[in-house]
């Protein structure tokens, strides 16, 4: 599904390397988790994969379903099936949440040569999915993320993911800021999307989320590299002992 090889990147504005050779493959149908200390480059990896400005890839490659994505425009990557649930979802005053989602869904369909979704079908679907995530009608009407609580923003990310049905879902600390019940809602939302032809990359600091979304593989990122890969037990080890041992091993 997603194949990242020896990916290096630096900041565009200054000579600061952030990713220093990331190797990672997420297979279709699998859930991979990335953990790692603050500043190790987890969000940067998600941004580089989704095409945010400000980073320059200096080496390596990344492909989605065999296609090079690093050369694509941001919106082309989305249409190709890449989705990033943001660590900090952006507020957009003046753009209605519903308008935004319908525009996005139909833009992706158009880019893939599919027929656009009718307003009625869209409404029906978004309402049903919003209900599952306990997102009320008012939140759909309001401007994108404006005045949403931290947890509401994260649930709104998952709603978008459910509507867009991407191939590869990257979730950046979707669990942060969620209360226990919301965490369960989000996890249910994600689990409902799990399918043999979809891959997940879940960035998190806590075992908590992984109790609900069971990962197949856990990676530890440190200083711009994946320094350790293991099964679900690796997350438990981090939870218990922190990163000190792992960092020592990799040094």
């Amino acid at each position, binding site marked *: 599904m997603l194949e990242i090889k020896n990916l290096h990147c630096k900041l565009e504005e200054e000579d600061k390397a952030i990713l220093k050779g990331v190797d990672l493959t997420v297979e279709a149908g699998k859930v991979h988790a990335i953990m790692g200390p603050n500043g190790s480059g987890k969000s940067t990896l998600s941004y580089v994969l*989704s*095409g*945010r*400005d400000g980073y320059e890839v200096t080496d390596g490659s990344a492909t989605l379903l065999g296609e090079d994505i690093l050369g694509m*425009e*941001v*919106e082309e*990557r*989305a*249409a190709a099936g890449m989705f*990033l649930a*943001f660590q900090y*979802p*952006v507020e*957009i*005053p*003046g*753009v209605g949440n519903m*308008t*935004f*989602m319908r*525009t*996005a*869904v139909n*833009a*992706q369909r158009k*880019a893939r040569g599919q027929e656009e979704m009718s307003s009625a079908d869209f409404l029906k679907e978004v309402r049903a999915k919003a209900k599952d995530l306990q997102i009320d009608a008012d939140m759909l009407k309001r*401007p*994108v993320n404006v005045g949403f609580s931290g947890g509401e923003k994260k649930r709104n990310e998952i709603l*978008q993911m459910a509507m*867009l049905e991407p191939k590869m879902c990257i979730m950046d600390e979707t669990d942060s800021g969620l209360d226990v019940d919301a965490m369960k809602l989000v996890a249910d939302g994600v689990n409902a999307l799990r399918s043999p032809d979809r891959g997940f990359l879940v960035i998190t600091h806590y075992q908590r989320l992984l109790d609900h979304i069971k990962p197949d593989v856990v990676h530890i990122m440190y200083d711009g590299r994946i320094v350790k890969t293991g099964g679900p037990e690796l997350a438990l080890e981090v939870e218990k002992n922190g990163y000190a041992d792992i960092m020592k091993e990799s040094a």
Partner: protein
Amino acid sequence: MMALPQVKQDATDARLSTLSLPVQDGWTRSARADALSRLTARGLPAARDEYWRFTRPTDLNATEVPGAAPMDESDEAPIFDGIDALTLVFRDGVFDADASDDLRLEGVEISRLASVQGADIHWAKDLYGTLEAKGQDPVWRPFAALNTAFAADGVLIHATGTGTRPICIRYVHEKSDSDPILHHVVKVDEGAAVTLLEAGAPGARFNTVLEADVADTGTFHHVRAQGRNRERRANTHTFGRLGRESVLKSFTLSLNGALTRNEHIVEFTGDNAVAHVAGAAIGDGRIAPFHHDDTVFVTHDAVNCESRQVFKKVLKNGAVGVFQGKILVKPGAQKTDGYQISQALLLDDDSQFLAKPELEIYADDVACSHGSTTGSIDEDMLFYLKARGVPHRRAMDLLVLAFLAESLHEIESDDIAESLRTRLENWLDRHAD
């Protein structure tokens, strides 16, 4: 009276020599004569005048109309087409009776200045030129005086009840050297209500004045779209006087225009009244110059009145936006709630926004705020939209419309606001580069 500086004297004399007063002026005679004497005493503006610092008056002063080709706007439905309104058509300032509806509307008395001004008396006699004259202090507005003196025609609207339909003045610009001067008067009686729409550019260069007197508990809604003609020059004035518990809302959409100066002069004379003046302007300097100036002066001379000024401009390819807005709170105008925001979204480094927001307050128990910002497209928002698959162009348009949304919110009617939004979307489609 001090003599005018020679340049002003010359400019004023030259311009006046090209204008003539109507032969049959009837009840407008004294107002026209007074306006003319104001104009000769104070003269046309010069580039060095403080009030004209950001907008050069040269093209407005010029004795010869700077040519402006008419615009074929047949590629989109006429604006307000979907609104059931009583429509009056003016072609280059000349009334077109065949294209217009009958001037009959329940709750409203409508007449035309040119056809009734020969009489000795008319209800508009007390108003014509009155608000304009009052609005000449503390700032001189020469083109408004010129308008009162020389207006060839206009629509006189007297709301005695609630107008069952909006009145729409549709301007058609066909001649590249037309220079219409139109003067409209709106009188809203106690408890009455009326909506006035204006659509299109009245001419190559135009000077329009609207005087609106809203009596106690009356309501006046005014929405205007100034046409797409790129080369036109315009100076418009909207004078509003508000009685107790009355409401005035005026919104202007401006797409294109080599030179547009829209002035709003609003005065509260009765307590607990509400006035909102707002505008959205969008200009692309690539094909023709774009210069848009909103100049607003709101005077609070009553207790507990609310005024809002919301002006937004989107500028690209060397377009220039100007905002001069003032809130004056007179002694005793306690509990005034005055709000003013002027914002520009610059889509490139070539465009510029010049703003002069002012507050002058002589009462102690008031809440007034003003803000002016110049910004560019927010990169985080743009990335977020694109990361969801929205193409760059569409994402930009969404953000432009979002930026303008706050001003469109000031429009009372959703249908009317929607028709303006469609025009904006069409404009963005045509300027997708």
